[in-house]
């Protein structure tokens, strides 16, 4: 392909001198290609740096700077004290304000960070927490079955006892889910250690398959689409 070289309309019929040399076409083409490539590259790089659907480890701003580190790590509350429906329901449950008030009607009542809680309790207006672990609407995750089959809280939520502010610890991509659904024996724990923050298996290679058996986990269907999507 050659670029058409611009010529003024020949009115007099006299030959007109060539304005651009034939090589100039190549230069134009190269410039265009580099320009397009550069723009695409910049856009892609910008996207790669700024847009991350799975932003991990970044604390989310909440109406109350709730610290799992304090409540779990220091005070030693059990997960189920607040997330009461985790063993029986699809969702673990964000505690009602009344749960906070079991202690905070007495403790730290004058702290300014607790003011929203007290106000909510006084006025009857609910708190609006920001969701940290959001799954798409076409994924039907159920907490209770994961707890019943020995998947520890830590496996997905990380060491919340070390988190002053809660941040997401896992990608929540389908590949991440399937890593475990394909090889549950690498992650299952004894029932007694599900809520434990610091349990480490002595020998997961032997323990895992034994637990899979005792939990009656049907590995054939764990990767069926219908298990999570409806």
């Amino acid at each position: 392909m050659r670029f058409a070289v611009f010529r003024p309309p020949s009115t007099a019929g006299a030959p007109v001198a060539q304005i651009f040399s034939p090589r100039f076409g190549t230069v134009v083409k190269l410039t265009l290609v580099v320009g397009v490539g550069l723009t695409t590259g910049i856009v892609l790089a910008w996207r790669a740096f700024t847009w991350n659907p799975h932003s991990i480890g970044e604390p989310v701003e909440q109406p109350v700077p709730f610290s799992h580190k304090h409540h779990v790590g220091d005070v030693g509350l059990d997960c189920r004290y607040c997330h009461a429906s985790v063993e029986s329901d699809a969702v673990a449950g964000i505690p009602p304000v009344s749960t906070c008030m079991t202690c905070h009607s007495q403790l730290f009542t004058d702290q300014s960070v607790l003011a929203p809680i007290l106000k909510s309790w006084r006025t009857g207006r609910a708190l609006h927490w920001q969701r940290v672990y959001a799954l798409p609407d076409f994924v039907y995750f159920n907490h209770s079955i994961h707890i019943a089959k020995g998947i520890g809280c830590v496996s997905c939520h990380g060491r919340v006892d070390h988190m002053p502010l809660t941040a997401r610890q896992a990608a929540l991509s389908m590949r991440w889910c399937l890593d475990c659904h394909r090889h549950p024996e690498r992650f299952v724990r004894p029932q007694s250690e599900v809520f434990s923050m610091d349990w480490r298996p002595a020998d997961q290679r032997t323990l895992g398959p034994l637990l899979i058996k005792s939990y009656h986990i049907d590995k054939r269907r764990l990767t069926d689409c219908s298990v999570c999507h409806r």
Partner: protein
Amino acid sequence: MEFLRAKLAGKQGTQFWRALEELLEQPQALQCLREAVPQAARLDPVLDRRSFLGLLGASLAFGGLAACSGPPPEQIVPWIRRPEGLSPSQPRFYATTLRVGDDVIGVLAATHEGRPTKLDGNPAHPASLGSTDAMTQAAILELWDPDRSQAPLRHDAIASWDEFLGQAAATARQFAQDGRGLRVLSGRIDSPTLAAQRQEFLQRYPGARWHQYEPVDDDAAQQGTAFVFGKPLCTRHRFDQAQVIVSLEADFLATMPGHVRAARDFAVKRSPTGVPPTMNRLYVMEQTLSLTGANADHRWPMRAAQIAAFVEALAAQIGVPSTRPPAADIAGGLDSAQLRRLKALAQDLQDHRGTSLVLAGAAQPPTVHALAILMNEALTNVGRTVEYFESPEPRESSTDSLRTLAESMGSGMVDTLWILDANPVYTAPVDLLFEERLAKVRNTVHVGLFRDETAARCTWHLPRAHSLESWSDLRTYDGSVSLVQPVIAPLYDVRSLHEIVAFLLGSSRADGREIVRSTWRGQGGLDEEAAWQGALREGVIRNSAPAAFEIHTEPRALPTEQRPGAQGSLDLLFQPDPTVWDGRYANNGWLQELPKPVTQLTWTNAAWVGPALAARFQLHDGDIITVRSQGRSLEAPIWIVPGQAADTLVLPLGYGRRAAGHVGERLGFDAYGLRTSASPWQAVCSIAATGRHVELATTQAHHVIQTGEPLRAGTLLQFRQNPAFMQAAEGAPASLYPERAGGEYRWGMSIDLNSCIGCSACTLACQAENNIPVVGAREVQRGRELHWIRVDRYFRGSPEMPTVHHQPVPCMHCGHAPCELVCPVGATVHDSEGLNVQVYNRCIGTRFCSNNCPYKVRRFNFLQYADTSSPTAKAQRNPDVSVRSRGVMEKCTYCIQRIEEAHIVADRQMRRIADGEVVTACQAVCPAKAITFGDTADPATAVSRQKASPRNYRMLEELNTRPQTSYLGSLRNPHPALQDET
């Protein structure tokens, strides 16, 4: 017609047809049927190549732009104090009661986080036994309808309840003297609380009157009992005790009160059990095809006058003491074929004394009802298959009551009229001039769910709370009472009917619960709080049905009746519409789009004509005719209904609404325009073709299965001779595909075509459960309806007197599924438990799968049908099912959400899922319990036992698709002497 008869004469064996066009083999119709995808033939080429490419480019660009944003941040809003035992994701069920059409059905309302999302039948309720009908399923959509009235209106301007209270107090003061000039109009009173309020009203205002008008009434039945017993009585039938049933146009399987229970009892007697196998036998005499007629062993289309003559002859044959002045020969008017039927039927009834049942329909005259009662008595059926009881609530003749009111209004005797939950401007007989006379009433108050035709012509319109938002009580067909409790706080600023009546009685702050509670103080044993709570939890008040009436018949001469049907004119029969009833459900999209059982029409009504009449006037489906009756006329498109009597025209009520809401207006024609108070059901008419034509939205020719024999049917006699006569001689053909390794369960379904009555409740239950949107009439015409389970209808025999069969068709979940092989992106795959699953997020919309599906069960979202913007539409949805977007294929999932829920509960407890733990939505709703679902890998489950029946067959098994849904063939039980008729 001659051509048709000749065609049929040449055919042998089981020949099924679905539409008359199939028989006629019109080239254009046949081509349409041959289209594998009917919608392709109907697509108007509105886009040229350039604009198509332009739109394609734009959608790509905008699609790319839309994909740039991440998911929106979500918030979690916890409780302040969590109610005890409230689960965040599990549904809660409340027992309550709904009045649907003419019926009262007990339901369990499922609520998700306080939002009612689905209604199931209440197993403890006598009219439900756990099932419901299609209209009950759609009641949930009515609750969330954005067109519901939301505030009181005065002269169409928004007013407040306080203003209205002032008005009500003024009314109370004005009529404090004696109440003359004050009138109330309500529908039929079937609530003891409303009856008590009526009593209080009449005591307080002795000169006032309370009228009752129900467009679909049972006046004739009441008059029939009044004739025999001296006072009007209600009737309860026991179909589970009846071996021989004679229905005189009584549509007890679809429209009569108690039809859900009747279908269950009928199906129980229908299953061929025992040695030798026995079944009940149903004879139906009717003018047009009804669902009951479609399920009959003998169905004889007759004109109105013929039915009356036949019944009289039958009564004489079985020894009913003559109630007429002795005529020369009652059977004289019958021809030889009818005499033969008469003889066989009379003999059959005589052979089943005490186990037979004769019943008459609402459109039949009181004499026929009286004769049915006398026949039941002569056959010693009373107390066995039929009982009578006195209604504790006051009953009035509907048309008489409204006529009295209209005449008083016309003569200026009515000063104030309160219309409680009725729409007489639309539904009143045309000769009463209700709308005109309403203008003469000084002060009018309308109470209703919608701002309808009547509301627009009243001074005040008050929004009523929906039944799912209010307290009440309702008496069902057998006399049992159940409580109505709110399952959600009112969505808008509305009051319940009882609270509004309390305003009229002078109370300014009424509490619905307290009003209902006070009705039951001192009766029903509900005084104790525990008993009250128990009745609420159970959903029915125990022993509340009145005792059967001790029977005393006094033979009197039957009045002679003016029978319509003179030579040369046509009989005109009015019918409630099977889905929108008398018009009250016109704004319900689910009901509008549900193919009507007999006609398969959607979104409209049509004048039904028989094939012979259509041939005489050279009419085709959709041709517009003028119907003239008693000096009035209307124009209506026709629909040819096989099996309709030759000289009968049927007009379904409920369409032509002028003020119904965004969905229900300007659809069909208003048949009330020809209905008179003198003969509300039956009249005479003449018709004339106009030469114009309109295309109606029907699903009749959609999803036709072209190959093989999808439906198998036979007779009880054949079944006795060889139980496996419907099964293919050879077993499953060999397959080149390897057998799949199964999982722990293998889900499967069995549908008993012998039980299925074709009511389409399954289609609507599925729609409610699985968030299936409606698509509208235009899209239905293109074959794009989205119902996951459809009910196919097959005819056999001549168009004048066909046998009818129904076949529900969900996804077959084939073991060797043709759809899976052709999907280029693996969006439809098999799971380890035998389900053929559709992965919406993988689907790119090639539609190869639906083209390759021999059962035509896959549905495609051609447009964005699901409403994702209206808040009330979102609130109704089942949170356990994805809402599909444009461009995605969808189909029956065997209610995968219910399977997974059962899986999680069982797996948590380390046990197997028990048989019956997974109940699909279609299975739960089925009144006849025709659908069984469960694990087919375990031979002990109910579904495995069903599949082991000799009647079991797989649809199109010659294609070797190995479907997991199978059918039990349909049987009919004709009278041995009339075998040749079917």
